[in-house]
């Protein structure tokens, strides 16, 4: 681990300022992703701005009947909130399907959205990785890439986003609010937060340097059932192979791309009355197998059809 300095600012303005005045600084929230990456020197911030105690840990009801979830709420807090559980069961299910209880107690809403890929080659600093070291190549391409992307990937990077929570939030049309380093507040859809890799997989999100996520805003719950289903190699404490969040006839996928993937073609087909299997196939037409991950295409299709069967039946499973 590289030596670094550390501070714990008192308020949001000070936090943003601390990053602005200190090149190479990073926000530290729960630390469950950042500290791991620092230990293997994939992240080497010169300065840590600990936002862990900023007053951003509330969950409030919004005027339109949705929820505003502070960026520093823990995953456990959100998943166990009675309003979340009744209005957005898909979100509670997605969160508890991630990590372990200990991790969820530390992990925050903002940190979960910003966590980096779990591509094994990204974690292995001896291997080429365009995300870690732009221009070095992509070891996953042509490697043991069973868990890589089938949608939106590029020759530069075929990694997937690991967040479960983000998949549910994307299906719920949630937006994040941020404060930029210049002190400007802005808002963008969770589904638009992450960038596809293209030629610049090192650029992961639309956030600018030093921009702080302050909260996630979820609009009022849509009608229809909600379900989150995640396929994984063991029963708990494993990243997903693929996952699906179905909210009424909205569909978002995890484990298929470098971002939570809204299956818009599927949604449009469903809205047009196309039967579920064909509607699912509509989005998957663009899916591409790369080496060992081809099974994901069939898998996410079957999983989605099953999930939609549940939500269409109106059950809030």
């Amino acid at each position, binding site marked *: 681990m590289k030596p670094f300095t550390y501070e714990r600012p008192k308020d949001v303005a000070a936090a943003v300022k601390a990053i602005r005045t200190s090149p190479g600084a990073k926000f530290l929230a729960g630390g469950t992703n950042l500290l791991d990456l620092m230990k293997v020197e994939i992240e080497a911030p010169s300065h840590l701005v600990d936002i862990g105690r900023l007053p951003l840990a509330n969950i409030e009801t919004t005027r339109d009947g949705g929820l505003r979830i502070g960026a520093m709420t823990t995953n456990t807090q959100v998943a166990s909130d009675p309003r979340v559980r009744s209005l957005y069961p898909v979100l509670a299910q997605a969160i508890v399907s991630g990590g372990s209880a200990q991790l969820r107690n530390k992990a925050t809403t903002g940190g979960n959205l910003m966590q980096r890929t779990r591509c*094994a080659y990204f974690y*292995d600093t001896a291997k080429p990785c365009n995300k870690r070291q732009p221009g070095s190549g992509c070891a996953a391409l*042509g490697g043991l890439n069973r868990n890589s992307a089938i949608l939106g990937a590029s020759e530069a990077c075929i990694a997937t986003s690991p967040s479960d929570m983000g998949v549910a939030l994307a299906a719920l049309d949630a937006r994040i609010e941020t404060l930029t380093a210049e002190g400007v507040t802005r808002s963008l859809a969770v589904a638009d937060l992450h960038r596809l890799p293209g030629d610049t997989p090192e650029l992961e999100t639309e956030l600018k340097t030093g921009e702080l996520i302050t909260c996630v805003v979820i609009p009022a719950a849509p009608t229809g059932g909600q379900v989150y289903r995640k396929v994984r*190699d063991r029963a708990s404490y494993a990243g997903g192979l693929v996952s699906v969040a179905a909210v009424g006839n909205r569909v978002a996928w995890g484990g298929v791309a470098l971002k939570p993937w809204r299956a818009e073609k599927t949604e449009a087909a469903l809205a047009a009355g196309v039967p579920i299997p064909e509607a699912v196939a509509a989005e998957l037409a663009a899916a591409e197998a790369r080496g060992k991950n081809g099974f994901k295409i069939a898998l996410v299709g079957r999983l989605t059809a099953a999930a939609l069967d549940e939500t269409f039946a109106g059950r809030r499973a």
Partner: protein
Amino acid sequence: MSSVKDWALPNPVSENRSGLIGKTVDRYEGRLKVTGTAPYAYEVEPPSAPAYGQAVSATIARGRIVSIDTSAAEASPGVKLVWTSRNVPAQAARGERANPRSQRGSNPTMASDAVEFYGQTLAFVAADTLENARAAAALVAVTYETQPATVDFMASLDQAEMPPGEEDTEIGDFGAGFAASPVKLDETYFSPIANHTQMEPCATTAWWDGDKVTVHTSIQMVKGGQHALAETLAIASDKVHLITRYIGGGFGGKGQSYDDLTLAALAARELNQPVKVAYTRQQMFQATIHRPAVQMRVRLGAEPDGRLNAFSIEAITHCARNVPFTEHAANFSRSLYAAPNRLTGHRLVRMDLPGAGPMRAPGEATGMLSLECAMDELAEKLGIDPVELRIRNEPTVDPETGKPFSVRQLVSCMREGAQRFGWERRNPTPGQVREGRWLVGMGMAAGIRGNFLLPAKAGIRITADGTVTLLQGMTDIGTGTYTILAQITAETLGVPLDQVRVELGDSDMPPAPGSGGQFGAATAGSAAFETGMVMRRTLADLAINDPNSPLFGADPTLVTFANGNIALENQSESLASLVARAQPDGVYVEGSISPAADARDWSQHTYGAQFAEVAVDVVTGEVRLRRMFGVFAAGRILNAKTAKSQITGGMIWGIGTALTETNPVDPRYGSFLNQDMAGYLVPSHADIVNVDSIFLDETDDKANPLGIKGVGELGICGTGAAIANAIYNACGVRLRDYPMTPDKVLEGLIAKGL
């Protein structure tokens, strides 16, 4: 030398007067461990402030170091030394044994500029803090000249050769027997590379006192570690004091020493300061041994009534180019089922990978994954129940050696297990039981694992306050050795358990071979028992020769020991008062055990039968275990609690083998894909919902004076196959390629139109 006949005579342990043997006894060191106060090797407090070391690992599989730039590391904050092959202190050449009695040869680090596997130590940094050491280690820049490496096992099967000094065993005429069999099975199974994944990494704290080094290290074999370090440093072994009190998991992976031991000792000498060195999690995966992959061809030829005519397992496995090791995946089968025509053997591919080595039940754990699946497949072909098929092939004597079995309760294990598990509710036709999206099925497998006794010594001291201390250069790798040794000592000497202390893991103590091969309890325990018997005779002599003893002048053969007293009829005194009066400095004796001269006249094993129920998600191919039950026969059970922990722990590992554990090699680099526990998946609690086991009543009086056998490895034997068979019964997908991950099951489901 003794004969097994002596072992069958009644003795304090077999008589078990106070009932301590077999009881549920909490772990001797349990409180220390659950309160985090048991000092593991890295946590031992050295006599003065330590420096911290960090090894730098190779990132190619084979080649030569062209240059190593250490200047940035040397200039990094807090750095005390940086070593490469150019400046590391001299060590004896690899394998050298200056002392012919050393159990292990020299194991030097950074001995040359040759790279023989990915993960090999190439440089070493010591600094004032762990963080500084790690940061500096990351600054060491190595350039290589790479050479072609053999790292892809499946692509190298054509290089398989007969392992050194081995030959195939053929009995009868396998070819003819197989050809003539009306029902045949010929299938190939694959068991992948697996890692030990111990919680505690390899770690050492070392310091010197003059010319003598003290090392606290995490190793399963005290003498092996002591000798390896002495040979490496080219010093006498009595100049190495090796201590290994607590071990956070070994499983065979810590049967040998690694560079942490050598480097800590070398650096502590160089810096004249204690040094701590631990492997990182990544180095644990990449730079220690692993269980090699095995490809197994199984051929079974049977009569329509199920009797086997011909039986064969041919296993191909691999090891590091210069470190011979064979995963004997066929050996177990030589004693399992009757068949007149038999062929078994192994082939070995030398590869440029880290060392292959033993892991919990080496041979059985992999081998049974094949045969016990094949038997299930054969049962289906024959239309015979899988339990019944195995019973029909139960041999009366060892089918290869013709020796009698010491005791063999395999059939009882299967019958008892079938009954308790509810095996009769299994529908033999696959894919018939559906619950919502789940297809549910049952499978079973038999288990067998050899039993061993090695030579060992022990010491017992009784002090004037009556405290009995067992001293042994044995290890407890988390299995319960401390606890069972306390029980054996207490029962042998007739003292309450809380009067007994156990001190282990010190090279100054009477040596025992350590933990491995499920020989630990039998070997160390028998030595403790024999030492207890020496102590009884010594105390009896002391009493009958002491005019102040109530036993003065008594016949020593009539003296008894119970409740902390030595007694003759109604005359008695406490051991404390006897020792305090007759030998106030305390009484110390040593004793030993060695294999009986006629021990090999019997075929001796432990047995089990495992039953599993799984559910397969018909949409996703995910397999979830619903319940698993095992029945085992492993001699007398010393401690119901620790034995059950060992057996169910083995079963749980077998569940991981079946469903998740694998570490594929990236053929482009020769490295493992998974280098942390987020990628290498062992079972989590949620995977282990309902796993239970029982032991059958048994005493094996051919095994050792205690009538006990090993339980540490038996639990994993057959487990994975039982699950594979349950998957098949659930959904009709027959997988022969472990682990059975959702992608593989899904492919099968789709192929079946599900």
